[in-house]
């Protein structure tokens, strides 16, 4: 079980002698993933989703807050002792094209972490080879075909499966999937999503899912938690289905309203919310972060930073919370 | 003619002694100074470079001179009509000032130390056109030569460099005690001021006066105040920069040069130069030879048999052919003297010396005598360790490099491993040579015509003999620049002492000493004389005529002196 509390991260953009520009990417994020559970983060581009994923996977440092992995707070360990903990959390990159080394065959790519694993557990080469095949079979590709090939010889879907297989070599407990299907051909996307879903069930790994696309979030983590993140802050969270069908925060509502409608199959939600202007990093940091774009803002919103309040299941950070029905509904044929 | 400068009355030549640096001062005391001897810089007289008698001169600022037989007194009579280019007459005062300036630079005749050989005792202005210089107690037969080679500068330009009490200071300095030391210091302290002095413009007593200097070229125009300006054919002289032989070759091929100083030329290039309209080659005596000098502190070169063996193995004519086919003649044998002078100094006795003709059998004998061994057809050291003859040369002297390569090839043919090692530049070469780092190095010798100069090269400071305040001492090998490391006596004779006597000896005694030294050198081979230089010069008939003939004694003098002597005439029709 992994708990993150109060994670903040500010990037210092390289400046010159007279100082650097600070970009707050995360402003205190808390969440918990249970074993076998699913947590989804959605938000606009630049909201800090990737940053969060990388922090959780131990690939990025954070400024304050703490991550507790199986009861061990990472802040209590020296950085080099954290690695074994973070290894249990594997990141699946968004881009399967860059996530595999183009100069190495799939066999080589899988062999390296397996060799490490074999060394740690005192197993031999035969085990490694067998395990590679086993894992590839597990993610649904033909090992005989894939192993001797280079990444460029594989389709996007296959590549993403290889990436997942590689993550599985170290028997992770959590997979962090950052936009893991956005670069894959439409017809293959669902296959990979189904695989992740399947792995959750079969291997009992938890999935931290990061996406733009709420529908895929629902597909994988329909039974999990959904966090809506805006400019580094969680503005709404709760059980996925519940947030989708009853969003309270205007930002969540905007996100859901923006989902294209499959005319002919669906019709638009009745209460669509459209932000008054585009996202602008330079917007003021005082008051509600969404205030400038919020169609429902009041003067209070510009002055007061709303805290995340929970009704036990669903939490939101809005001064004027109101449930709205925004998602498209099935058209009656 | 292709590329000839063509302009009437312009004489183009090259100063082979230095690079022309536009930023340097117009000052003959500056090593890089922009004055040109024979053109705008004048000495009292011009040495004829006679192979035996160094005391023959052509007149310069001095119209004539007299000297006592022991050279204790030299009286110089200046050209009565000599004028500076600004119209002021050249007077004895100018000569005296020039001598005073020479003292600050430490000239041989003008050494502050009265005990130094051939130092002047007094400078007396007899009348505006007569100066008398007397020699001190430690007499040398070089005195006349040194006095007459004084470069005369205008007192009204350079005079201010000497403090008013200069001559009293000089007197003081020649005494002893703390006052003398102080005075000495104040005189030598003037050296830098004199060297760095930069007159605004040239004031010349010569046939030309400097008009301007560009980077790499200097232009001189005729000095209408020159006493014999009617004899001077060219209106202007262009002195081109000298940065390398190759540059002179190109100028010559282009027919640009009216005369060029001594230049080493490969045969192919010589043929090209000859094809250019008007180009002629003039050859004369050049009192310089090349040798390979041994460091006798290093085994096996401490053994005379080894040195002799090498001499028997080197085919000097082949070496000369490879290295300097046009600018050198193979040395007849090693005497220390250039072949031309040797004729006069040694006469037929040279034939009695060992000629070191190519003789592998004799060489093998000598090597055996030295205890060297032959291992697998290769000569090795007596203890059987390998022997590699390492010949050092400065990389920038391509004829030396070629000579060294030819020698190593020959040695290799005879079973002696040999290689050529080069130093990046001449300065480094000299430094390392003097530090005793080389076994064998190529070395200039026979630097005549004065017999003392010739043998001082071999039995002088490089070989341990040092002359300090008139006293000759010998320092052990490896110390204070004694890199040759030869023994202090050869066959019971101290060659350094003998050499030193040459300066004071009369001609008959000189001949005797030279004979002895030549024999000692021939027998002991502190170096192997390889080839004697030939002064190969070039002239061009298209614009001027009247060139000195082959073997003329003026060939070693700058063309400006030829003009002063009235040799050079303008070509009648172009």
């Amino acid at each position, binding site marked *: 079980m992994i708990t993150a509390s109060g994670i903040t991260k500010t990037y210092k953009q390289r400046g010159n002698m007279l100082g650097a520009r600070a970009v707050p990417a995360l402003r205190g994020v808390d969440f918990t993933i249970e074993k076998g559970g699913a947590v989804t983060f959605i938000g606009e581009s630049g909201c800090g989703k990737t940053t969060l994923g990388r922090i959780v996977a131990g690939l990025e440092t954070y400024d304050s807050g703490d991550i507790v992995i199986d009861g061990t707070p990472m802040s209590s360990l020296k950085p080099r002792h954290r690695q074994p903990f973070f290894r249990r959390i594997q990141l699946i990159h968004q881009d399967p094209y860059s996530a595999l080394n183009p100069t190495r065959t799939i066999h080589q790519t899988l062999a390296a972490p397996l060799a490490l694993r074999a060394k740690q557990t005192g197993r031999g080469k035969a085990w490694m080879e067998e395990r590679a095949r086993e894992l590839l079979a597990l993610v649904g590709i033909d090992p005989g075909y894939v192993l001797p090939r280079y990444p460029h010889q594989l389709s996007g879907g296959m590549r993403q499966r290889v990436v997942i297989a590689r993550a599985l070599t170290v028997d992770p407990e959590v997979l962090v999937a950052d936009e893991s299907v956005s670069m894959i051909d439409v017809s293959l996307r669902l296959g990979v999503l189904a695989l992740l879903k399947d792995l959750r069930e079969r291997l009992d790994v938890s999935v931290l899912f990061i996406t733009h696309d709420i529908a895929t979030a629902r597909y994988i983590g329909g039974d999990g938690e959904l966090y809506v993140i805006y400019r580094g802050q969680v503005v709404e969270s709760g059980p996925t289905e519940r947030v989708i069908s009853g969003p309270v925060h205007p930002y969540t509502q905007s996100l859901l309203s923006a989902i294209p409608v499959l005319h002919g199959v669906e019709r638009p939600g009745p209460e669509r919310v459209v932000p008054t202007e585009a996202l602008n990093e330079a917007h003021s940091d005082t008051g509600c972060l969404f205030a400038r774009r919020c169609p429902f803002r009041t003067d209070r919103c510009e002055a007061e930073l709303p805290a995340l309040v929970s009704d036990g299941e669903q939490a939101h950070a809005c001064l004027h919370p109101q449930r709205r029905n925004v998602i498209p509904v099935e058209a009656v044929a | 003619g292709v590329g000839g400068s063509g302009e009437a009355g*312009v004489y183009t030549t090259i100063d082979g002694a230095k690079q022309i640096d*536009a930023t340097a001062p117009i000052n003959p005391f500056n*090593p890089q100074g922009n004055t040109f001897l024979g053109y705008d810089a004048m000495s009292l007289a011009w040495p004829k470079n006679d192979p035996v008698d160094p005391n023959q001169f052509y007149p310069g600022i001095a119209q004539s001179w007299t000297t006592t037989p022991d050279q204790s007194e030299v009286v110089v009579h200046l050209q009565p009509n000599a004028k500076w280019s600004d119209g002021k007459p050249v007077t004895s005062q100018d000569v005296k000032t020039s001598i005073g300036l020479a003292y600050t630079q430490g*000239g041989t005749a003008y050494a502050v130390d009265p005990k130094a050989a051939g130092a002047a005792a007094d400078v007396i202005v007899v009348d505006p056109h007569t100066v008398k210089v007397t020699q001190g107690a430690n007499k040398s037969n070089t005195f006349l030569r040194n006095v007459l080679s004084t470069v005369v500068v205008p007192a009204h330009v350079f005079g201010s460099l000497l403090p008013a009490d200069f001559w009293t200071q000089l007197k003081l300095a020649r005494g002893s005690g703390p006052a003398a030391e102080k005075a000495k210091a104040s005189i030598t302290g003037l050296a830098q001021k004199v060297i760095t002095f*930069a007159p605004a413009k040239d004031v010349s007593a010569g046939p030309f006066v400097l008009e301007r200097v*560009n*980077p*790499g070229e200097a232009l001189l125009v005729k000095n209408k105040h020159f006493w014999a300006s009617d004899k001077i054919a060219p209106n202007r002289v262009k002195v081109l920069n000298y940065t390398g032989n190759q540059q002179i070759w190109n100028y010559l091929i282009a027919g640009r040069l009216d005369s060029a100083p001594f230049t080493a030329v490969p045969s192919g290039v010589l043929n090209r130069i000859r094809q250019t309209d008007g180009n002629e080659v003039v050859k004369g005596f050049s009192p310089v030879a090349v040798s390979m000098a041994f460091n006798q502190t290093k085994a096996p070169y401490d053994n005379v048999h080894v040195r002799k063996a090498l001499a028997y193995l080197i085919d000097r004519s082949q070496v000369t052919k490879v290295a300097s086919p046009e600018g050198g003649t193979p040395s007849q044998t090693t005497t220390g003297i250039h072949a031309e002078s040797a004729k006069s100094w040694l006469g037929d006795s040279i034939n009695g010396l060992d000629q070191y003709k190519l003789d592998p059998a004799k060489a093998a004998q000598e090597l055996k005598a030295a205890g060297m061994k032959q291992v697998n057809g290769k000569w090795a050291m007596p203890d059987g360790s390998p022997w590699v003859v390492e010949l050092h040369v400065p990389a920038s002297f391509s004829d030396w490099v070629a000579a060294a390569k030819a020698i190593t090839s020959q040695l290799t043919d005879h079973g002696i491993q040999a290689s050529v090692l080069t130093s990046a*530049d001449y300065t480094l070469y000299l430094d390392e040579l003097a530090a005793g780092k080389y076994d064998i190095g190529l070395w200039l010798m026979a*630097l005549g015509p004065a017999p003392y100069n010739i043998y001082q090269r071999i039995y002088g400071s490089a070989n341990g003999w040092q002359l300090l305040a008139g006293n000759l001492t010998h320092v052990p090998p490896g110390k204070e620049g004694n890199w040759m490391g030869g023994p202090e006596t050869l066959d019971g004779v101290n060659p350094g002492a003998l050499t030193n006597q040459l300066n004071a000896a009369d001609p008959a005694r000189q001949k005797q000493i030279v004979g002895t030294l030549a024999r000692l050198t021939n027998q002991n081979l502190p170096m192997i004389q390889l080839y004697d230089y030939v002064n190969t010069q070039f002239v061009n008939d298209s614009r001027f005529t009247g060139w000195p003939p082959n073997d003329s004694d003026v060939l070693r003098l700058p063309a400006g002196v030829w003009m002063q002597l009235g040799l050079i005439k303008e070509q009648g029709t172009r």
Partner: protein
Amino acid sequence: MKTVVRRLSGHLARGLAMIWVVTTLSFVIIRNIPGDPVRGQYEKLIEQGMSPDAAERATAALYGFLPKGSLWSQYVDYLNGLLHGNLGQSLSTPGTGVATIIGSAAKWTILPVLGGTLLSFLLGVTLGVYAAIKRSGKLGDALAISGSLLHGIPQYVIGLLVVAVFSTLWPILPAGGPVDIDFAPGFNGPYIASLIQHATLPVLTYALASYGGWILAMKSSVATVLGDDFIMAAELRGMSRGILFRYIARNAILPLFTILALSLGLLFGGAIFIESIFNYPGLGLLLVNSIGARDYALMGGTFLVLTVAIVVANIAADLLYAVIDPRVRKGAEA
């Protein structure tokens, strides 16, 4: 403008530090070169026929020009001098300041280096565009290969060939010296004509030696720009050929300006070969001569100037970039 000033100040500080380190390094190396300048001068006089003791005395005065004191105190003196803009006194031309000598030599390096580089830049850039646009054609291929080949050939090889052709085989141009002495220096026709005449071959050599590099750089730069989406977009908007060409050329040439500035800086140090071959009295030849004469101050000074040239070129390159590229110029101000 503010950005430029801000960048400049940072660069200056770093540049000065670099210069100091290189100066120190070169000081240490130069003072440890074996070889005695006075002995060199002595031997030169001997060869000219001066008698040994006369030569010895004549050179004795030169000892006064050698730097004195421990290496450390010499170093302190040297730095102190530098801070006061004093590069010291030359030993081979005693009495002349190093700054004067370097100043007069620098003129002769700047002229052909600048001329040659700009010429080759213009030529290379023009042909590079052509090579990139016609990259599948025969001529484009030929241009590219000739570019790589010329780029690969060392300067001195080109210099030697140029001399062989234009002043040996077909002697139409002078191959030595910077100017004829016949003409009084100044802004007069004949002098300038002579100047140009003498500079032609060195300039040609610089141009030939660097032209290949420009072709290649421009070709690959154009190829990159051609692959940029905005070119295709402009084409699909029906932009006229002229404008399209300008879009390509201007964007492609931008990164080359940086290289241009940098290579100018480096060329000063690389002038040695060409100046030796053409006997051109610039910084390269000066350095060679000062090494030969073991003129410590002159060596150090020349080295310093060459280093400064590189540092300045680096700064110039960066500022140039900041001035012409709006992404840098405006981006940093926002």
